[in-house]
């Protein structure tokens, strides 16, 4: 019987009422009295020296309040980078300056050069067109390998070269890995590209800056996944505003997918300009701007090698990756190809020796940073693809090859520094075999062939690290932040609760799922609990939502705070019931004395806390409000097995997804419906990456896929019905809910299955194909068949 409330119930998403009826309150819905608008003049060339910016004509245009250039930001800090990677020689990464407005040079198409604040957006845009920018174009570096050549133009003249860092992991293993390769019975080598993506959340970025002259208080309304992080970074490193004078509000946010984690120039600009102009300043990104100013995702070029012994056991793994940073370091960019990627290279397998080399490279392109999965999809993709290729080369069944090499004992310490607490890869593979009806595949293939279509099956596993992250660990790894989470639980006099969380919901359903946990703990109805998030003025310092961390870290903080509430409420109840505190039990929203019929309702206790007439004032304070910060002791390790079946049109190369099945282990589950929705969305994005999405530049650094005319977004009709299952559950051992997180799994697990299925289809027609680079557009698939 499905539950109708609490943990494990598929409670309907309460936030959907406002989202689906147009009653949401997004940043662009915020309009302040006296608000002016900013338009950014952005570079249309990829690389050039700015000789002069003449704003005189623009300044005299109708409605113009003020025109800004880099000169206005002298003395203001640049955009900070939140993670410092140390390279394999022990040197810290090269970290270029990142100005709010281009200073001296432009380094990518879309970089803001000047900004016009005016009464209306149209006036600001008119005036921006009147700015005369004199730029000498320089040769651009776009291809990463070209960028590392000795004679390559430098993106940053003050750096040694275009190499941000050359990271080796685990450096101490390197020699042993080399040796294992020399002794291998078989070595499989695969070169592949993880395509560059643009996240394209439905809501583009928006920022509104406000300054209260009377108090000196700044407010920034912004489309962010982590308002406290923005407050800290922007306040401390960019504008020099103490946190108590800066409020950051991220109201309803229409999707983030990572791209709204980062601190962007436009946020700092509107905050700064609101004071400089003494009026609120608003920026709303157009979709065109989003393509050239939102941080992009992925863009890795990798050579991966897998060594096997004569019995097909994996003996070693070696990878060599070039990771594109773009022209500047976005907030968390350095961490993605390193600690979020190298540490996952063991995957689900007991490969004893692993060495990962990553060269992060500056190019004249938009900065690249975390995108749903961040590093883990890159790790999973190359690992699962090389296993498929090894199976082809060895003539063995790819699923059996995986099973043979599965990690089966937990906890398991990988050779890449992490320890998996729990998992059961055999169980998820068995479950997948069942729900995907793998046994029926050959019959389905025959049926497709009878219709003239090629059919292929791709199956793979994935592991990811969620619940980011133990602060002391990430501190050692170069993070310039802690990664705990917080919650304040405020119980009102009449028994309702408000939870103020540092997590941020931008589509994940926190407002529904979080109350389910507390309702279960106290035994009250979910409707008595409200979640408040997204405003630094009324939530405790938190690190926000990304890396599938909300329920694992934010949920744990909420549990800890609620435990404190319950402990105090029991004290109050024991007083009201004149019983010993240790005899008080809380069940179904009532406190009772064990072994008696004496009880007092939740609401009576909460009322007593605020109307303390009959109250142990000598022992405890009135009121019922507690805060907890939770810092995890490890990552969580969701895992699973995915299967994709495709049909390929021999004549056109068109691929259609016929079936997609996902068996995931997310540990305990709070709301199965929301979890399924997260998996569906993740798979859709993974299929988008595998079949459709491709952010491409020409050799001069012009963005070729700069709109939906050329950037192919997945649509509903590109998707099959998904068969998803999360009944395999090995609860996390180190957080109070036993949860692992589910937000990114779909995007991590699905691309290799899609590519594997297409390769399998082509091979069924006798084509000697082992890999096709994403996206598998009709054109590429057709070319692979020639």
């Amino acid at each position, binding site marked *: 019987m499905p539950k109708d409330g609490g943990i494990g119930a598929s409670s309907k998403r309460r936030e959907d009422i406002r989202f689906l009826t147009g009653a949401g309150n997004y940043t662009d819905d915020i309009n302040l009295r006296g608000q002016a608008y900013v338009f950014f003049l952005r570079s249309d060339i990829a690389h050039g020296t700015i000789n002069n910016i003449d704003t005189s004509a623009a300044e005299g245009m109708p409605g113009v309040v003020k025109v800004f250039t880099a000169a206005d930001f002298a003395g203001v800090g640049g955009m900070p980078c939140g993670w410092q990677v140390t390279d394999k020689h022990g040197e810290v990464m090269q970290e270029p300056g990142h100005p709010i407005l281009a200073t001296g040079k432009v380094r990518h198409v879309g970089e803001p050069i000047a900004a016009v604040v005016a009464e209306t957006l*149209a006036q600001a845009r008119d005036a921006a067109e009147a700015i005369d920018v004199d730029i000498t174009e320089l040769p651009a570096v776009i291809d990463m390998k070209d960028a590392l050549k000795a004679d390559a133009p430098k993106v940053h003249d003050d750096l040694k070269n275009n190499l941000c860092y050359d990271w080796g992991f685990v450096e101490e293993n390197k020699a042993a890995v080399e040796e294992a390769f020399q002794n291998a019975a078989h070595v499989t080598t695969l070169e592949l590209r993880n395509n560059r993506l643009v996240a394209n959340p439905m809501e583009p970025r928006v920022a509104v800056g406000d300054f209260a002259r009377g108090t000196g208080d700044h407010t920034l309304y912004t489309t962010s996944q982590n308002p406290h992080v923005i407050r800290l970074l922007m306040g401390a490193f960019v504008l020099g505003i103490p946190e108590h004078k800066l409020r950051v509000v991220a109201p309803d946010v229409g999707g983030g997918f990572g791209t709204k984690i980062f601190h962007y120039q436009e946020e700092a600009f509107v905050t700064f300009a609101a004071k400089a102009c003494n009026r609120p300043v608003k920026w709303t990104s157009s979709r065109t701007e989003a393509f050239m100013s939102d941080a992009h995702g992925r863009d890795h070029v990798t050579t991966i090698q897998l060594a096997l012994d004569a019995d097909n056991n994996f003996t070693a793994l070696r990878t060599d990756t070039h990771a594109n940073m773009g022209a500047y370091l976005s907030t968390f960019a350095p961490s993605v190809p390193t600690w979020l990627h190298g540490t996952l290279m063991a995957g689900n397998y007991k490969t004893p020796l692993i060495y990962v080399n990553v060269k992060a490279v500056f190019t004249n392109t938009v900065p690249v940073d975390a995108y749903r999965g961040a590093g883990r999809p890159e790790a999973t993709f190359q690992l699962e693809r090389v296993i498929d290729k090894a199976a082809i080369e060895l003539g063995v069944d790819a699923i059996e090859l995986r099973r043979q090499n599965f990690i089966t004992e937990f906890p398991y310490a990988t050779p890449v520094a992490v320890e998996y607490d729990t998992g059961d890869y055999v169980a998820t593979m068995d479950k997948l075999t069942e729900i995907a009806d793998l046994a029926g595949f050959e019959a389905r293939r025959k049926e497709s062939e009878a219709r003239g279509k090629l059919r292929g099956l791709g199956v793979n596993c994935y592991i990811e690290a969620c619940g980011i992250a133990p602060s002391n660990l990430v501190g050692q790894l170069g993070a310039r932040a802690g990664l705990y989470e917080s919650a304040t639980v405020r119980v009102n006099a009449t028994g309702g609760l408000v939870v103020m969380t540092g997590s941020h919901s931008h589509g994940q359903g926190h407002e529904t799922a979080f109350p389910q946990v507390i309702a279960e703990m106290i035994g009250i109805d979910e409707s008595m609990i409200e979640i408040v998030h997204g405003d630094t003025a009324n939530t405790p310092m938190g690190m926000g939502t990304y890396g599938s961390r909300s329920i694992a870290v934010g949920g744990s903080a909420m549990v800890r705070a609620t435990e404190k509430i319950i402990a105090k409420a029991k004290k109050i109840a024991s007083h009201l019931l004149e019983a010993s505190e240790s005899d008080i039990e809380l069940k179904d929203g009532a406190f009772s004395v064990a072994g008696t019929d004496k009880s007092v309702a939740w609401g009576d206790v909460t009322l007593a806390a605020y109307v303390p007439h009959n109250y142990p004032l000598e022992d405890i304070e009135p009121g019922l409000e507690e805060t907890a910060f939770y810092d995890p002791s490890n990552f969580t390790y969701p895992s699973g097995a995915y299967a994709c079946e495709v049909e390929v049109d021999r004549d056109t190369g068109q691929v259609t997804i016929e079936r997609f099945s996902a068996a995931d282990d997310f540990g305990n589950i709070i709301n199965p419906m929301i979890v399924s929705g997260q998996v569906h969305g993740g798979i859709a994005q993974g299929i988008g990456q595998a079949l459709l999405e491709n952010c491409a530049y020409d050799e001069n650094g012009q963005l070729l896929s700069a709109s*939906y005319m050329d950037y192919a977004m997945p649509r509903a009709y590109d998707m099959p019905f998904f068969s998803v299952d999360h009944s395999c559950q090995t609860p996390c051992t180190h957080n109070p809910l036993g949860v692992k997180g589910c937000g990114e799994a779909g995007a991590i697990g699905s691309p290799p299955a899609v590519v594997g299925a297409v390769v399998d289809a082509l091979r069924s027609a006798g084509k000697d194909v082992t890999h096709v680079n994403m996206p598998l557009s009709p054109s590429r698939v057709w070319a692979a068949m020639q």
Partner: protein
Amino acid sequence: MYNFDFVKPATVDEAVKALADDEAQALGGGQTLIPTLKQRLASPSKLVSLTGIAEMKGVSKQGDAVVIGGGTTHRTVAEEAASAYPGLADLASRIGDPAVRNRGTIGGSLANNDPSACYPAAALGSGATIVTNSREIAADDYFQGMFTTALEEGEIITEVRFPIPQKSAYAKIAQPASRFPLVAVFVAQYGDGVRVAVTGASNNGVFRWSEAEAALSGNFAADALDGLTVASDDMIGDLHGTAAYRSHLVGVMAKRAVAAAS
């Protein structure tokens, strides 16, 4: 967008007069022009909306032709031409999405002559006549390369006459992002021969594939096209497909259109 004046005349004559002004431009369904204006890639002083002109709307059968008003939306064509000219109605029903089909017009599409648009294939493949406020233009003379037509400044497409074929069909493969044709072929069989028009493929816009027409006029069957190829020299090569792929698709789509023709 830049500022512009807006007028919505009720007759073709009034529209022609309004378009005589310097920098005035006709506005059909706005599905191409409005995005262009929003990107500030065009700056007409005045937009002359054609959507209020009743005489430019509707689908009728006149003798052995289907006559479509220049201001008729794709959706109306999809619905109202279905019995008289199913191949044409099917083409219209697959342009863009419902919002585009409810606004976009045949006159706008033909005036724009996007190298990847659908209607040019039907017009050229049917040997249609483009009727304007001042003259009639044969489709063979009308299309003059991508985004280029025989229309004069201020000339309005008031109707399009499509001779009804015995059989016809439109086969297209969508460009993955825009879902415009990557390559599409319209095939129509008439008493005096077969016409084959190709869109999406060539740098010169829509074109007739004469070798295929000759082969199909002799034998209207997909395998009549076996061994025929179009040279890839003038084919579009871009992110979504190489020139070689597009020239290959011309053959595939032509065969599919023939096989589907009814």
